[in-house]
Structures are given as C-alpha cells and as structure tokens.
C-alpha cells in the first residue's frame, strides 16, 4: 500500500515539475510594525499538486497565505500565478485570479443557509432569485463531483464544524478557484472528518486543482501532500518532495537546531505532590471539548513540562487550573486540599490557596497595558492586606515593594511609574514573573515564559524557574519551545488534540518529542 502511494506521489511530483508552476513567490516580505512576519520568502508550487507548508505557530504561514489571498499586501516581492507576475491588492482580485481560501476561523455568516453563504459576493444578478436556481444546480454538481454532500438549505451556524468547512471549500470552488488554500484545516476536525477532508483534497488534485495545505501536523503532511515547505520564524527554511523526506527530518527543520540553552539544573530532592489533577475535561466557549480527560501530578521540587503545538488544549488547561474558566469535570488537589474544578472558582481564590500563574499571553491577560509598572505589580494580589490601608491601596508600600523587585529582577528602565506597554517584552515578562514568584506560592503555573522575550532575559527567566524548583515548589511549565521544555523539565508530558499522548524524561530526543507533538506515539506503537 505504502509503496503504491510513494510511486504515485513521485510520479505526480515529476508531472508537476514539467509544467509552469501554479504559484511562484519571489522575495516576499511583510512586517507588522517591528515584527518581521515574512522574510524573503521564495516558494514554488506545481500545478495539480498538494503542497504542504509546515511550521510552528507564529512561523509566518498564515501571514504568507493572507498575502496570497489579498488580505494583506506584501511590503516587497513578486507573486506569479501560472507563470505571470501579478498583484493581489484585495480578496476580490484573488478570487478573480482563481485563488480560494479556507480560513482557520471560518468566514461564514452563521444565520445564512449554505446556499446563501456560497453565493455571497457571487450572486449572479441583482435579484437573488436569478442566481439562486443556478447556484443550487452548480452546488449540487460540485457536491456530486467532489463527494461533498450537503443540505443547501441548512443554516450554517447549526452545522457541525466539519460541514462548515465543506461549505468553505464549496464556496471557493463555486467561485471557480483553481488554487485552494487551506489554513490549519484539521484543527477543528475529528480524525474521521479529517480523513474525509483529505479524500476530498486528493479528488481536487486529481481534477487538476492546486492545493496549498497549511498545517503544523506532520502526519497530515506525510499523508496527503506531494511537496512540502517548512517555515520557521518568518523564513522559508526548506522545500522537499514529501516522498523524499521523513517526519523526523521535517520535525527537525520545523523546530530548528538552535543551541540548547545552558541551564544549571542541580539535583533537587523531589517531595510530595503539591498539585494533582484528575480527569480534567474543559470545553471552550463554543462548546468544543478542548481538554480531554487529563490527569497528572507535580511534586515539590519538580518542573513538569507540557509540550505541544499551541492550540492543543494547553491554554484551556491553564485557564481551568487557575480558576479563570470553569471546567466541565475534573478535580484538582492543591497542597493537599481537594477542589472540584467543575464548580465555581475564581482566580483570586486559587492565588489564595497558594497557586500563582504566569499567563501565556501577558498582553491579553498578565498585564493591564495602560497601568503603570507598580499598579501591574499587584494585579491579582491587590486585595492582600500588605498592599492596603483599609479600603485604600497603600501606594507607598506598593511602590516600595515594586522598587525592590525592579532591583532584584533587574527590570529596565528602573521606574515604577512608566506604563507597562512601554516596557520591552522581556521586561514586561519580568514584571509578571516577579509578581507571581515573589508572592511565594506552592505551585507555579507558567505559560510560554519566554515568548517574545529578548535573548538576555530568557536565561534570567529560566534561572528564576530553576530557583523555584530548588526551593521545593511545584512548577507546571507550558511551552511550545521544545528546547525550553527539555532544558527545564524533570518530566515532560505532551498534549495533542486535548489529550496527553505521552510522557518522557528530559533526555527525550527532539525527534521523539516532535513526533509526539504531531500525535504520533512511537513508543506506544512499538
């Protein structure tokens, strides 16, 4: 079976090469303010092939595709469609050049029917009546041709996500798309829905369409693509024929061979469990189950790392543990006290019980950007007696302590009065870290501790985490940076699609972890 597949894919790749490429990007650049999201991107995609683009979150994949779909305009570079240089100033132009896109967050109007969604922007006349009958026929034809049955009169908002995605694909095909871009299409799908999607993509390819598949899941790349490109930190680092590469190689390319940061990790005696989570299930606000029956424990003097590509339930896990959101079910034992996480809790209560939390996204949660440094230094602890005089805040005490922390954590510039927004990423993170460490918690939840942080601060932050460990605290570390997880953790669990798919020691190889992060447990398979 596998052999036949290989030959088929190989053959197809050769055919593709002989033609003019469907898409060619030369030296494409795009910046958002100081963030260089795409650096000198070159890309060639053969006609009638499925091309995968793989990379971690924030690697710049979505930005690149948005440029191709006219949602953003590139700062510089050339785009060629079917060999001809062109510009794509807006989505309308992309559509007219035969490009269709299935966004990660569906661009559907929920109360509309399938048919209405499909014809929006391509109604075929000022009156709906004129176009609708045609559209219904055309939709039926497309559905038959590509094996995508759907009720044209169902309200889209009431369809399961798999069918909603089908509507998005039909929408693109209805507009006559020859190139179809799918941005993380399986993120919201069940495995069987994903399989069905891949069948559809193969049919599309066989009909001569070009498919661009953006994903961070290696398995999908291997399963369905003909060629693959890897992006890392805004750059295109490699292009391969899928048949000539392996998951291991792609995992390495994707994560990058950056030097392991040296972290002093002394022997620490591991004590009793301070945090014990059992049977945790969490739904997001759309009702999707994001954390599935997760159980683990973290002992005193131990760092438990949770690895995984972001979006696999880690954020929801942190939110539920820290009391921000309510879990569907599950219990947590915090320093010996048992809590029902399906009950009503709030973050203040959890702090009170000795758990502090460095959130994944400091701008969205960890800081109030418009507040000054010292005001941010008490966020979540503002009701502590040491910060108050009756109903008032004791600003002198707060400032005094903030100053001490600025000194201790070397926060720059050393001022308590500047608003948080004006500090650099690393210093912002230090403000949060100082707040959550200096309160002397038993358990520290810490998410993406070094995201958007300058190199200098990374080492400092890592050392503080190691200090916590040495002091006999329990640390739960969530990070998408494998290096970080490996160098800091005593044990590593990997989350994929809401499940814990495996546990490893810190000596686990990048490859092994990379495969786990893609949902492949080799150990279990053996």
């Amino acid at each position, binding site marked *: 079976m596998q052999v036949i597949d290989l030959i088929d894919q190989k053959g197809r790749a050769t055919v593709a090469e002989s033609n003019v490429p469907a898409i060619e990007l030369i030296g494409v650049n795009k910046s958002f303010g100081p963030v260089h999201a795409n650096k000198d991107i070159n890309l060639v995609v053969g006609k009638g092939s499925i091309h995968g683009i793989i990379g971690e979150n924030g690697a710049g994949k979505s930005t690149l595709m948005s440029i191709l779909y006219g949602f953003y305009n590139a700062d510089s570079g050339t785009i060629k469609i079917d060999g001809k240089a062109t510009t794509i100033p807006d989505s309308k132009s992309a559509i007219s050049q035969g490009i269709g896109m299935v966004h990660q967050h569906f661009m559907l109007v929920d109360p509309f029917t399938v048919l209405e969604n499909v014809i929006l922007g391509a109604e075929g006349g000022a009156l709906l009546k004129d176009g609708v009958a045609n559209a219904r026929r055309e939709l039926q034809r497309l559905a038959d041709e590509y094996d995508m049955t759907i009720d044209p009169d169902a309200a889209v908002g009431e369809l399961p996500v798999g069918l909603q995605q089908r509507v998005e694909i039909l929408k693109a095909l209805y507009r006559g798309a020859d190139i179809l871009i799918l941005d993380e299409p399986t993120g919201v799908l069940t495995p069987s829905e994903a399989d069905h999607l891949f069948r559809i993509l193969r049919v599309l390819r066989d009909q001569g369409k070009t498919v661009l598949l953006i994903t961070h899941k290696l398995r999908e790349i291997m399963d369905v693509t003909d060629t693959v490109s890897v992006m890392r930190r805004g750059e295109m680092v490699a292009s391969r024929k899928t048949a000539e590469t392996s998951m291991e190689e792609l995992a390495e390319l994707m994560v990058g061979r950056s030097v392991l940061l040296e972290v002093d990790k002394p022997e620490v005696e591991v004590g009793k469990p301070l945090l014990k989570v059992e049977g945790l299930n969490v739904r997001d606000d759309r009702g999707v189950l994001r954390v599935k029956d997760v159980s683990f424990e973290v002992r005193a003097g131990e760092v438990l790392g949770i690895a995984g590509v972001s979006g696999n339930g880690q954020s929801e896990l942190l939110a539920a543990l820290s009391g921000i959101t309510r879990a569907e079910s599950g219990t947590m034992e915090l320093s010996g006290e048992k809590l029902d996480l399906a009950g009503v809790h709030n973050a203040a209560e959890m702090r009170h019980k000795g758990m502090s939390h460095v959130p994944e996204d400091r701008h969205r949660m960890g800081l109030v950007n418009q507040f000054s440094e010292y005001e941010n230094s008490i966020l979540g602890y503002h009701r502590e007696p040491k910060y108050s005089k009756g*109903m008032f805040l004791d600003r002198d005490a707060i400032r005094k302590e903030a100053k001490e922390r600025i000194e201790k954590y070397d926060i720059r510039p050393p001022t308590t009065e500047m608003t948080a927004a004006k500090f650099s990423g690393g210093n912002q993170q230090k403000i949060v870290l100082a707040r959550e460490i200096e309160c002397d918690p038993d358990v520290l939840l810490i998410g993406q501790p070094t995201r958007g942080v300058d190199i200098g601060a990374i080492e400092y932050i890592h050392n503080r985490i190691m200090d916590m460990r040495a002091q006999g605290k329990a640390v739960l570390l969530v990070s998408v940076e494998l290096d970080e997880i490996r160098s800091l953790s005593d044990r590593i669990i990997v989350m994929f699609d809401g499940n814990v798919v495996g546990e490893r020691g810190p000596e686990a190889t990048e490859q092994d972890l990379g495969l786990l992060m893609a949902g492949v447990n080799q150990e279990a398979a053996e």
Partner: protein
Amino acid sequence: MSKGQLPRWVDFGLLPALNLIAAFIVSGLVVVIIGEDPFEAVKWLVWGALGYGEGIGYTLYYATNFIFTGLAVAVAFHAGLFNIGGEGQAYVGGLGIALACLALDRFIPWWVTFPFAIAGGALFGAAWAFIPAYLQAKRGSHIVITTIMFNFIASALMVYLLSNILIPQGTMSPSSRNFEAGGQLPLLRNVFTSFDFGQSPVNLAFFLALAVCVVVWLLIWHTKLGYEIRSFGKNPDAAAYAGISPVRITIITMLISGALAGLMGINVVMGEQTRLLLDFAGGAGFVGIAVALMGRGHPIGIILAAMLFGLLYQGGAELAFEIPTISRDMIVVIQALVILFAGALEHMFRPAVVAFFDRFSSDTAEA
C-alpha cells in the same frame, strides 16, 4: 520615542485641544451661516458668563450640575460601560432628595436634612441604574439601550408622580410644594455677601460637587475597588485573570454612577428651586457625556469641562439676549459638536499628528 507613539502631553493636551478647536471652528461657521459675527458672539458669550458677579454665579450653578453628571458618566467609562441614562438617574434622584426634604424640612434645620437628602438622591439614582446594570451583567442586554429606555420610563414615572401624587391640592402646575427653610440649601449670595453673586442660584451644592470630585478621584485611583474598576474597563481578560468578578464590578460601578447622577438634584431641587418640578434635569445628564469625554474621565478635567459648559450655558443666555438671532440653542449645537469631535471623531487628527511627530523625531535623529 518609537514610531507611532506620542508624548503624553500630545495625547492628553494637544489632541483634545485640536478636537475642541475643531468643534469651536464649526460652531463659528454656524454663526456665520446665521449671518452674525462669531467674534462678536464670543465676546458676548464670555462677558455674559464671566463679566459680572451674577453671570459668574450662574456659570458656577450650571457647572455644578455638569460636574455631577460628568462624574457619573466618567465613572462608568472607567469600567468600560456607557451609561447614557444619567438624565433618568438624575431625575429619579431628585425624587429621593425631594422626599427627604418634604419629610424633614418642617422639623429640622437644613444642615440636618442635607445628609438625608444626599442619601436620598444617591440611593434613588443608584436604584434607577441598578436594573440596567443587572441586565447587562447577568443577562447580557446592552446597557446603552436599557439606560435609554430607563430615561423615558423615568420621565413617565416622574410626570405621573408630580401631577398626581406630589402636587399640592389646589394647584395646577405639576410640582411638589415648596420646601421650608429646613429643606433649602443656603445660596452663596447669602453666605459670601462680600462677593456680588446678584440673583444667581449658585448654592452650597457647588462645594458638594467639588467634594464629590475628590471622593471620585480617591475612589478611582486610590481604592482597591477603583483599581478593580479600572482593570475591568481597560482589560476585562486581565481582570478575570486577577480574579475580579465582572458581574460585581458592572453592578457596583453602575450603582456609583447612578448615585452620582442622582446627586445632581441637590443643586437644582434643594438649592435653586426648593421644590421638585417637571424635567428639572433639563438635559444635564446628556451634557455629562460631553463633559466626561472632554475631561477624559479625570475629576480635574471634568471640573474644567463642566466650567466650560457652565460658561456656555450662562453665556449663551446672555448671547441670545444681546443677539436675538442666536438663540440659546446655539449651546446645544456647540455641545453636539464637542461630543462629535472629542468623542466620535476622537482620532481624526491622530494620524496627521503622528506623522508630524515621526517626521520631527526622525529629523532630529538625523541631525
């Protein structure tokens, strides 16, 4: 200074000033369209408001109203809530004040009635804000719409009460009876006899307004509750992260906001009119929106903005008297333009100013 950012004084000084100037320029054009000289108009306006003791007295009297309603809107703004119901809350608050005065004025001196009247106004104003607050916090109904509805319901309720319940027997005009001395706030013209306030109704409520400014300043910037209100308003996600309950903050903030609006009646009901009468709020609740926007939510800014609007209200009356073609409604137009430019078009000049400063800073960097 990195690109795209502006120094503080530009953000809090220059941009609001530009917005205000734009509003005044358009107002001037309106005067030109009417066929009058805008500079002449400004002269009468300023003279009418500040040129003599009685004018100053009236200016302060109007400003007092606007401080209360401006603070009400501003406090809600700090929690990210748009309380457009200040008018109704002030109106109903007046009822609380009137009830306190009607109950006590015959038995005790005004300074004993005063705290009860304050409590009555605050309580009734807060109560009127409670239902919209509860519906927003618990049931997700939009507070802008519900507070608008409550303005109209307040109006109907008060008309009914005034013309059927509170109206003294044998009179026709829908108002309560006049309060006796125990329900009257001293007028400043009787307190500070050395300054000639003329017949202006400015009264002790002015000092209450200033005191309330201090209280609000302390509340918002110095208490734990104020900290929570600001956190919730600036970043609801961070507030949730900090364990601050959105329901609690929404309701408490709206109660405070309603109470502040309710206090406005102290100035009019207990100070000027010494009775409760129809529609005494007279749009001050809405002026509060302009005052809060212009004052950028800070009590000092609100005092300044309230003074400006007090000046416009009093000066506008004088202007209408001197130049009859410019009726008092000119103030409403100016008010509208201030709300438009300082509020809805707040960022209109920002790109140009940013471009100017970027160019300026890159020039100096090169040099």
